[in-house]
């Protein structure tokens, strides 16, 4: 079994390749699932607008590490418009904002992290259709840390030697303050405008569903 060891299947070496492979497959699956559905001009336009909002809001805060309203906007759009649109908004926001901030190996991971943030918010709505302010605040704060957790994977798996839980948490702790800043900004945004934004988007979603009836149907 010499070749088996040589190829590094049991070795630590292939974990980065494996993590990238899983990442790319996940993103492709999500997008494939979205592409399969028929296209509707309204949802396409809304998804583009929300992604642009999320992406634009990241640019003025570029100097402050991890402080940005993008996560918050993605979560709220996922909460109102559902899991699938939430994923699309999150991942598109990552691509679009990085076009001005700089693409890099982090782009696909951000696509996944923000996409999952939006998707999880869509799932959250199934369990809590009318979420309280405290609940939304907690959820947004939590995502500040989960985002850091996802973003840590590629750095940890490719560049740190003993791939153990201990070293993972050590790398995670190194970025803990940045993640806390991220979580704090999310919490503040959720407190100040969480409910308002949900209300705006909810009203808008109703407006999207409304269609004109021809006069002959009205009696």
């Amino acid at each position, binding site marked *: 079994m010499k070749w088996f060891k040589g190829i590094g299947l049991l070795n630590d*070496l292939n974990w980065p390749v494996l993590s990238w492979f899983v990442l790319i497959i996940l993103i492709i699956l999500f997008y494939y699932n*979205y592409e399969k559905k028929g296209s509707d001009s309204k949802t396409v*336009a809304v998804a*583009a*607008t929300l992604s642009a*909002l999320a992406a634009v809001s990241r640019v003025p805060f570029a100097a402050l590490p991890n402080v940005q309203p993008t996560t918050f906007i993605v979560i709220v759009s996922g909460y109102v418009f559902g899991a699938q649109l939430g994923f699309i908004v999150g991942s598109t926001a990552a691509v679009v904002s990085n076009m001005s901030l700089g693409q890099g190996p982090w782009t696909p991971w951000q696509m996944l992290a923000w996409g999952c943030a939006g998707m999880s918010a869509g799932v959250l709505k199934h369990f809590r259709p009318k979420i309280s302010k405290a609940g939304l605040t907690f959820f947004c704060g939590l995502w500040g840390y989960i985002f850091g957790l996802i973003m840590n994977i590629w750095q940890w798996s490719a560049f*740190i030697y003993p791939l153990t839980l*201990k070293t993972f948490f050590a790398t995670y702790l190194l970025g803990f303050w940045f993640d806390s800043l991220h979580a704090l900004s999310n919490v503040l945004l959720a407190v100040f405008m969480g409910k308002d934004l949900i209300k705006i988007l909810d009203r808008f979603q109703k407006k999207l569903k409304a269609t004109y009836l021809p006069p002959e149907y009205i009696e």
Partner: protein
Amino acid sequence: MSFHPISITLYIGVLLLLSFLTVHPVLLILFLLDLILITVSFNLISHLKSFMKFSLLMVLTVVVLNPLLSHSGQTVLVFGPYIPIIGRLDITLEALLYGINMGIRMFIVLLGFYIYGSVVNSDKMFSLISRFAGKSILITAMAFRMVPKMAKKLKTASEAQMARGVKFQGRGKIANVKNTLSLVKIIVVSALEDSIETAESMYIRAYGSGPRSSYFYEKFGLLDGLISINAVFSLFLSMFGLFKGWNSFSFYPELSTILKDLDQLVYFFLVFISLTLPVFYCWGYKRWRFMKLKT
């Protein structure tokens, strides 16, 4: 000089994959050398300043973090203090060298993505992907176009608010934040209103009425073919090296020898040549008119 997106994706993808498949310092340095050659030959150095500042920080993190986290080397340089649970924080030569090695790998990854971003035309990439994922690419392109539009809208809205007497500065911090947040709500509402208009005009132009047409006329020329062949050849060569064990190098508990036998030296040379040839192709493409005729 323009490339087909597939050939560049293949080349950079293979290079990054190979750098993940080995920890051998010689191979990593050769990969880095290749990327530096590409950077020089495409005149990307002048744009490199802001990239360097950021990437050096990431490289440094990896270099510093490794010796702090791993204590399995044999040559102890500094005996660290004893910390409960974690153990002794010894800094070993092996871990330090491993950190530097990983720093090189990190730099390869960052530089690879940087070169990819500056060489590949994103419009071409979009139109290539739009054949498979039309909707997603349309959303991305629309969002990208909306970015400057939104910045303009923000300016208009803040001017309108100021004309109404709202002050964004000098009313205490909480009042300032509240006034600015109200501006955000205005932007959200008006952007969403606009999106209905966009959707209607898309509907009028028969969006979604049938299968999407896609026109991608970029030619896969001789240069692209040569680059792709080289990339695939390097991949197979490296797989051969993997089976032969030429790619492996161990840092712990002791450093293994850099060069096992003469065959390995030949292998390094071949990998380097096959990854460097595309740079020469590009150079030749500029000089030699025959290649231009073939594209």
